[in-house]
């Protein structure tokens, strides 16, 4: 798997690849309220695509339009090349895993999973086999005679997944599939989910408001805000090259400062900010003097008690205002002379006791970052 990704792993870069799902200018209004606002999106076969955004930004609404429970106010949805406008939910090649699981309480686990196959008039012995196989995949074969009320939260979630998977849909829609689980179980299940997706090879669209989950799971992410897509891209693109302050702040954390472009060349940009002068080693086609923002991730800032050997851009000094110990890392809040607070995270590689050059409260410290670390944002 190492090496350059092939075209089949990044179909969105391939001009000739045919998208599996085509969302064209889709808008959904509830009365006057616009829940989804003129969204365009292509999703390709075999992707694990994440819709990420805060509460109420329209993720579920978009997913429900794919499943057929809501009709778009305007725009068009194509799945596998077929216009879905007049296709009812029970005839769509999709299955959905609901935010609340929606297991049928009056049926056993086995019957719940078999329900979808029965609707397709699959022969009985084939149903038995397929239900058995899928329950084995989610490790629930010993629970098939139980009712949903007799299962724990994590087990219910796996039943819901099995029920949606067993029909081998072309497209699986998952609405916050892991929201009800505790952190440990969630992380474990994230990998399981990615594994299952690789095994069965169907296209997943996953809704989540948990950015870590989106980063771990997905081939690509769309960041949503107020019914619109702010940015679409791979987890690395979204994290390392955010296009706006919203995305930079929503994914991970970032120190964002406002500034003016003082020099704009093909291979570098200089920005004057109240963090001092910032030098960025890639070009941006902006006018000199225009207003921009610069975002720097806390883990990309170096912290030192010794002053830098020579003066230059990408430097600042301040006092340690607060320290948060997070176990594997610590977060330092550095107060600059102009009272601006900059967050810096650093790994805790040495046990505190044996630390000689330990940084503590009220220390005077020097900050610095690489020319490639700062991110220039135009909006």
């Amino acid at each position, binding site marked *: 798997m190492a090496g350059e990704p092939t075209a089949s792993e990044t179909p969105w870069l391939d001009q000739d690849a045919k998208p599996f799902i085509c969302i064209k200018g889709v808008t959904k209004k509830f009365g006057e309220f616009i829940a989804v606002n003129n969204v365009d999106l292509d999703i390709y076969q075999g992707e694990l695509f994440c819709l990420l955004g805060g509460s109420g930004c329209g993720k579920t609404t978009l997913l429900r339009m794919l499943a057929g429970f809501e009709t778009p106010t305007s725009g068009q949805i194509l799945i596998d090349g077929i216009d879905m406008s007049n296709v009812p*939910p029970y005839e769509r090649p999709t299955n959905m895993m609901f935010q609340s699981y929606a297991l049928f309480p009056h049926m056993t686990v086995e019957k719940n999973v078999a*329900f979808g196959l029965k609707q397709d008039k699959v022969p009985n012995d084939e149903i038995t086999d397929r239900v058995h196989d899928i329950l084995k995949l989610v490790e629930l074969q010993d629970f098939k005679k139980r009712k949903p009320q*007799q299962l724990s939260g994590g087990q219910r979630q796996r039943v819901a997944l099995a029920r949606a998977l067993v029909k081998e849909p072309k497209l699986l829609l998952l609405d916050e599939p892991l929201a009800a689980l505790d952190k440990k179980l969630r992380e474990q299940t994230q990998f399981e989910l990615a594994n299952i997706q690789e095994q069965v090879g169907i296209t997943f669209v996953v809704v989540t408001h948990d950015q870590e989950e989106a980063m771990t799971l997905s081939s690509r992410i769309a960041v949503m805000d107020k019914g619109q897509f702010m940015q679409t891209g791979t987890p690395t693109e979204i994290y390392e090259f955010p296009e706006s302050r919203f995305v930079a702040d929503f994914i991970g954390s970032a120190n964002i400062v406002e500034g003016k472009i003082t020099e704009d060349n093909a291979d570098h940009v200089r920005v004057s900010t109240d963090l001092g002068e910032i030098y960025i080693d890639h070009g941006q086609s902006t006018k000199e003097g225009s207003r921009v923002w610069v975002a720097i991730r806390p883990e990309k800032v170096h912290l030192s008690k010794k002053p830098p050997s020579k003066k230059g851009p990408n430097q600042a000094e301040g006092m340690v205002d607060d320290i948060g110990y997070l176990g594997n890392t610590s977060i330092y809040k550095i107060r600059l002379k102009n009272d601006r607070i900059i967050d810096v995270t650093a790994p805790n590689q040495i046990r505190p006791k044996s630390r000689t050059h330990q940084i503590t409260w009220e220390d005077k410290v020097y900050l610095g970052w690489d020319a490639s670390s700062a991110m220039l944002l135009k909006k």
Partner: protein
Amino acid sequence: MYNKRSGFLTFMVTAGLAFLYIPMILLVIYSFNKSKLVPVWGGWSTRWYSVLFQSEDVWEAVSLSLKIAVVNATFATILGTLAGLAMVRFGRFRGRTLFGGMLVAPLVMPEVITGLSLLVLFISLNQIIGWPAERGFTTITIAHITFSLAYVAVIIQARLTGMGETLEEAALDLGAKPFRVLTDITVPRLAPGMVAGWLLAFTLSLDDLVIASFVTGPGANTLPILIFSRIRLGLRPDINALATIIILFVAICVAIAALIMYQQQKRIERDEQIANQEVL
């Protein structure tokens, strides 16, 4: 101070319960009175029970009442469920508000009005199309269905609203056509509500005196009509015996219902326990 208050409370509760139950106890005791005159105690006897068991008109009334109650409860449950589904699940349709209002109107309409209007309807129908030829079982049953279905519809609406639509959506998503969703998901989940509605309609029908009196015809006496018409001629010990049997019957029904509810509660608790054990 607390003691005083709880003493007062105990007194009030006792007085209230006494007010409710002493008349019934008296009724039961007097049903075993040997004397033919109700207020005069003539010693213990079961002779009124044997009189009762031999009087054919009582048995006819009982069987008529039960037949009406069963047919009424069944139809009211079916129609009431459909009405509830229409109100909650079919979204907005034209005249929905009017339909909703008309559905619950029988709950607040004075019984004499309902009875009178139905009587007018039956008489004019008889003149126009010759049906119903005579008033009795059919007319009473139809009258009972018209008001019982309103109660069923209210129960079903409440349950449907509480249930939400997610399970139906899940079934649709898994490929079930709307009719299958109704039979396989909605109706099974509504079953407890439908049973409750059936029982309510059954009791309402057994209870009803006013509406039945309006729409009944010669010779068709339901149990309440029979009891009431006899009482009008003075208290009678055999009616006391009949009332005692009814009280016994109701008590048994309530006990069975309580037992079923208790067992359901037990089952829910057990399910939760099993689920919790798995987590640990």
